């Protein structure tokens, strides 16, 4: 049993505790520790990713209690992938924030580390109630990060964000309670087994619990009409936080994959296929509303926020298609859309920082420093986000179009995806030409130039990392896709998962006593 499996949870927890305990008054030390820890976590995530490459799910029995009685973490390809994605994003975000955003409020780095802990915990856990706990960890950390720097808009929006999520959290408990009542277990592997043994009388209860759980994840994933909280939240969060939030919606998608497709999916499970009839129309609506929002956006950050919604629409559409093929495509799109959206959020902030009082609003304003550089970054991010070739957005979309053929109403889905792509192109073309072209026509900065502030390179580097991601994802699409196929295949190999978690370990414990 490799103790490294728990490291993505324990390390940030200890680092955050250390920051609160020791480094509270020393921002410099906080930064150093936080950055070092995040990079260390990335290394660990890479290690775990390589470890998971052998395709064997690795359970980690917390407290050395046998599954399903204790809590178990499971490292498989999917959790390793999500860990890796989260840490990559985290490194970019922490580098970006360390250039000054972390000064805007208190406890940025502690909250950031806790946020990572919550994310990593949610990805690793093999227990539904523990998933709830780590959802709460990542949510409350996200509340804290969201409110970082405060301000009226953020506080008012924060209240909404928290309220909606608290309603969702309540629902989570209702759902888990129902599932526990019927199955008597919380362990995911055990649930997969027990779900098949539920008698016909209680099947309705189980199905209700599972469906309600789906709604919880759909709130996180911003599925229409559960998405209303997102634009405001992502639109006013401070840039690095918004960038980090790019993965929060994906947690919802991950949970749907894990719980609805793995635990309760497949042939054996009576709860299979619950969500699909709802999911397709809702996902299409999500895609459409997200795209309309792109056209409606009045600032780059809102543009980025709506791009998250649109991308979730696409992603959830694929999740409506059962089977590993579709899910491999979904995972590719998930990787892409997370990093691309994060890049956009950071770009929005770089722009806001340079454009004076108009911030990142989509209005013409005088030219600003490093315009060409940001224009280039924006162009790449826009290409990626709208799904234009040759970046990962396009590849992801093509792959998705391909797998959607398995869906009965695929022509409509194709039409939706392609039409919204066009509108997205329109929206980004308008925004980009306004920001980078029209601005130059406004004339030179009339007002006296503010004293040339030193522009730290760190944010540019962090943004560049994210902007480069879609390029790299596209360039190495082949190997990545092979990995994702294996990941999706493993996700659907329920028997292997169950055996890995429940099988030999139970014997081992007995032998040890």
């Amino acid at each position, binding site marked *: 049993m490799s*103790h490294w499996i728990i490291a993505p949870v324990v390390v940030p927890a200890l680092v955050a505790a250390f920051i609160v*305990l020791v480094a509270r008054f020393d921002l410099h030390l906080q930064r150093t520790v936080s950055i070092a820890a995040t990079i260390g976590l990335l290394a660990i995530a890479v290690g775990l990713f390589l470890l998971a490459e052998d395709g064997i799910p690795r359970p980690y029995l917390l407290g050395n209690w046998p599954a399903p009685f204790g809590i178990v973490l499971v490292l498989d390809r999917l959790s390793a992938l999500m860990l890796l994605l989260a840490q990559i994003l985290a490194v970019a975000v922490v580098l970006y924030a360390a250039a000054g955003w972390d000064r805007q409020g208190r406890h940025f780095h502690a909250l950031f580390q806790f946020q990572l802990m919550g994310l990593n915990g949610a990805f690793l856990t093999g227990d539904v109630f523990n998933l709830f706990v780590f959802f*709460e960890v990542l949510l409350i950390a996200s509340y804290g990060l969201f409110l970082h720097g405060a301000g009226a808009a953020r506080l008012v929006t924060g209240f*909404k964000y928290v309220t*909606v999520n608290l309603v969702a959290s309540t629902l989570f408990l209702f759902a888990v309670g129902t599932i526990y009542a019927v199955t008597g277990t919380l362990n995911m592997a055990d649930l997969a087994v027990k779900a098949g043994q539920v008698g016909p009388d209680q099947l309705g209860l189980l199905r209700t619990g599972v469906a309600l759980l789906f709604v919880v994840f759909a709130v996180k994933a911003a599925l229409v009409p559960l998405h209303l909280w997102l634009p405001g939240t992502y639109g006013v969060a401070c840039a690095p936080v918004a960038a980090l939030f790019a993965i929060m919606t994906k947690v919802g998608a991950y949970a749907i994959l894990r719980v609805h497709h793995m635990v309760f999916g497949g042939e054996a499970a009576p709860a299979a296929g619950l969500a699909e009839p709802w999911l397709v129309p809702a996902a299409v609506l999500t895609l459409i509303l997200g795209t309309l929002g792109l056209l409606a956006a009045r600032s780059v950050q809102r543009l980025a926020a709506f791009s998250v919604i649109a991308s979730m629409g696409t992603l959830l559409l694929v999740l409506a298609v059962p089977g590993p093929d579709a899910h491999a495509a979904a995972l590719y799109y998930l990787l892409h859309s997370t990093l691309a959206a994060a890049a956009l959020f950071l770009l929005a902030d770089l722009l806001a920082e340079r454009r004076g009082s108009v911030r990142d609003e989509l209005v013409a304003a005088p030219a600003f420093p490093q315009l060409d550089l940001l224009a280039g970054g924006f162009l790449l991010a826009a290409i990626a986000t709208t799904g234009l*070739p040759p970046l990962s957005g396009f590849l992801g979309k*093509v792959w998705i179009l391909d797998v959607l053929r398995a869906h009965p109403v695929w022509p409509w889905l194709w039409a939706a995806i392609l039409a919204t792509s066009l509108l997205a192109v329109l929206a980004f073309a*308008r925004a980009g030409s306004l920001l*980078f072209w029209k601005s130059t026509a406004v004339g030179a900065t009339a007002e006296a130039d503010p004293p040339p502030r030193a522009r730290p390179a760190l944010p540019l580097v962090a943004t560049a990392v994210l902007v480069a991601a879609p390029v790299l994802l596209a360039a190495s699409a082949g190997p990545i896709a092979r990995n994702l196929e294996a990941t999706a295949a493993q996700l659907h190999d329920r028997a292997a998962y169950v055996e890995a978690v429940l099988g030999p370990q139970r014997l081992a414990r007995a032998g040890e006593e």
Partner: protein
Amino acid sequence: MNLALIALLPFLGAVLPPLLIRSGRNVCALATGAVTALALALLLVQAPAVFRGEVVRASFPWLPQAGLEASFFLDGFGFFFAFLILAIGLLIVTYARFYLSREDPMGRFYAFLLLFQGAMVGIVLSDNVLLLVIFWELTSLSSFLLIGYWRHLPEGRQGARMALVVTGAGGLALLAGLLLLAQVAGSYELTTILTRAEAVKGSELYLPILLLVLAGAFTKSAQFPFHFWLPHAMAAPTPVSAYLHSATMVKAGLFLMGRLWPVLSGTEAWFLIVAGTGLLTMLIAAWIAIFKDDLKALLAFSTVSHLGLVTMLLGLGTGTAALAAVFHVLNHASFKAALFMTAGIVDHEAHTRDARRLGGLLHLMPITGTLAILASLSMAGIPPLNGFLSKELMLEEALHTEWGGTGRLFPILAVLAATCSVAYSFRYVTHVFLGPVRDDYPHRPHDPPAGMWLPVALLVAAVVLIGILAEPVAGPLVRLAAEAVTAGAAPEATLKLWHGVTPALVASGVALFAGLVLLAAFGPIVRLREALWRPEAKRMFEATVEAVATGARAVSEAIHDERLQRMVAWTLAAILAVGLVTGWGGIGTGERPGLPVAPLGLLLWAGAIAAALAVALFHHQRLLALIVTSVVGLIVSLTFVWFSAPDLALTQLSVEIVTTVLLLLALNYLPRESPRESTPARRGRDVAIAAVAGLGVTGLLWAILTSDFAIPTISTYHLAESKPGGGGTNVVNVILVDFRGYDTLGEIIVLGIAALAIFAVLDSTFRGTAVQRLRTWSHEPEAADRHPMMLVVATRIMLPLALMVGIYIFFRGHNQPGGGFIAGLVVGVALIVQYMASGWAWARARTRIDYHALIGFGVFVATATGVGSWLFDRPFLTSNYGYFHVPLLGEVELATAMLFDLGVFSTVVGVVMLVLANMARVAARAEPQTGVPTAMDSVPEPRLADERITTTAPVPVPERTRQEA
């Protein structure tokens, strides 16, 4: 390998110009030219093979899961186009070096140009259809960048966006079409697809495929009604217009139709759509071109017209027509690129390209004038120039084409188009170059440096040479390409000037004559045209886009209006919908016998329900609502006591108290009453939602409570293992600190984060508007004494007692109800009472604990306890316990779980205190700053503010003095 390199070279080379521009414009241009030349050389290396009839291929895996491979192939058609693109590209690079002014950022220009070049070459070399789409869209993108190159020009921005949207839309349609085509043909590789003509044409998806593919081709090649973007793309620098919008990019659509000719052409639909659209486009655009005063606009519409011509030829579906099409592509590329460049020279020299302000330029710039006239004549179809040859072939084909049930309509329309073509070509010649020299040019023009006219001269030389020696010069290439289009069926036609007096020649003559007449009557015809309705395509497009954007904004902002009530209502509605639809019929009452109803239970039930409903009814009075809510909390605690959950009862009780204090602290600064503002309809809706939710939950729980579940729960294990495995008899506590200690770790971290977040949020209170609001906050009349004596004294005795109880509960928890969490709350509440009695500053000054550190310590201890088990190579949080004999105390049980619980305890105390202390700090800040200075004034300033007081007890407390009254 080489093939891929031809396409990739320009992409790789695109980094050079921006880097080299620092070394000078010449170096920059030379590097760009070198890249192009190298690509051209690589292409020519393949020529022998291609001319031998081989198909050169190269393939690399990319994303096979989606059918995408980086596979290229080179046949005659591809070679033909690639040659055009690179060769003309070389000329454009040269021309642009001299065309661009010093102010224009040349590095960026050449970079974009090379990107475009690469994309274009990529299209024509792609074997994989998805790869083709990638390059296809890249041309849209790079063209977007090039059109918007002069970013200060609004026309440039609008033109660029329009081009991107129209061609981008076509690209998306093309993507869909090609995906379907690949599905039908069973392969993504063109080389394979082209062999599956029967399968494709026989498929029920043929028509969708055709429409989608043509949508791509027509938008790219500016076919009616998608033609409108091209003239507006003329805002680009002229080299761009010459290259993209005449010679290459717009030909991509033609290329595609040619490429897919074997699998798509030859059907009725193909003929009707392609030939019909081509003919219409040819005619309409030629008519419009006549009247364009802007030379580039004139050329742009003429380009549209010629693209229509080629489209029409391809639509005819015959081998000869295909040959003519290929030939005309070549011819048009040569004379139109030349013409654009001359227009650019005129613009460059005379500082205008308005035909109305020009004339007589032949005298001032003889070289340019001569070249322009030659190219124009070719465009008009005058022998012996190459335009004549292909136009003859076109007319020949048109003459025996039946359309609309008659064999007349088609030729007549074709001749009409040719007529217009003559008219605008001659207008370009006469209105710009002929006539007397004027003295009102914005700038007196003369011939440009050789670098600018030499490329034109080379093209015009080709125009003349091909015209005179068609077969030897262009024959092999054109034939090679045409055979590739027709998939081997050798087209029957010879490329030569003189075929005898054919009907086509007659038609040509008619067109020439009519065209000249038309031009002679230019003035009246302009007036006639101005009287006619002319749809303004750009305005319509802009209006449409604006409407879409406005509509989108209206919809989006109506939906995303950020109103919480809507968010919650929709969330709940969705939950209820899903819950009811899944649960309906599937959930029902089970057979499990229940507990008899106890009268007192009934009473508590009634009390809870009455209290809850009262809160709902009277929530406007907030204090009242809070008091009544406490009743509900109390009854919930009693429920836990009743049903064998002592730990829950304890937790609920203590949490309740802390929450109440917290809510009261907040309420102090909130309005004491809520206004009654929701409409009856809204309330009705909310009651309905609430009622459904309540009924749903009742039904769900009722079903659960009355059902007998066959599956044993995992907690039988917990009950069995609690004592032997976990060392405690309080199973709930053992679950919390051992079986599921990991949950608890997460839970205390949630608390810790909450406290940190609250601290951070409150910390910002002391800046900005909030301070002002706090200072001016009008309090209700207050009672006089802050610290009621009885409370103060009582709490001083209570504190040590409560601490003792806390310790007791802590140590008992493993075996009896209690534990670290409850103990922490008890201690926290005891401290809160101190704060309430004696005030924040007083109590804080006497608490030496740093609450932050307490939280950090708690999380650290709990986590470290978990990590400690690694030392014994046991998983995280593995517990251990043992019994030790201590004198006087007897058997003492020590468990690592207790250490973990200590972490829990510490965190809870820290959290409760940090939160409340900071809430109190807000209040302290809001105190009207009057009278004696208080401890609150010494709160450190915001920048460094912490809940820690740096200076404690600033008020000197004199020794207790006794005074008799």
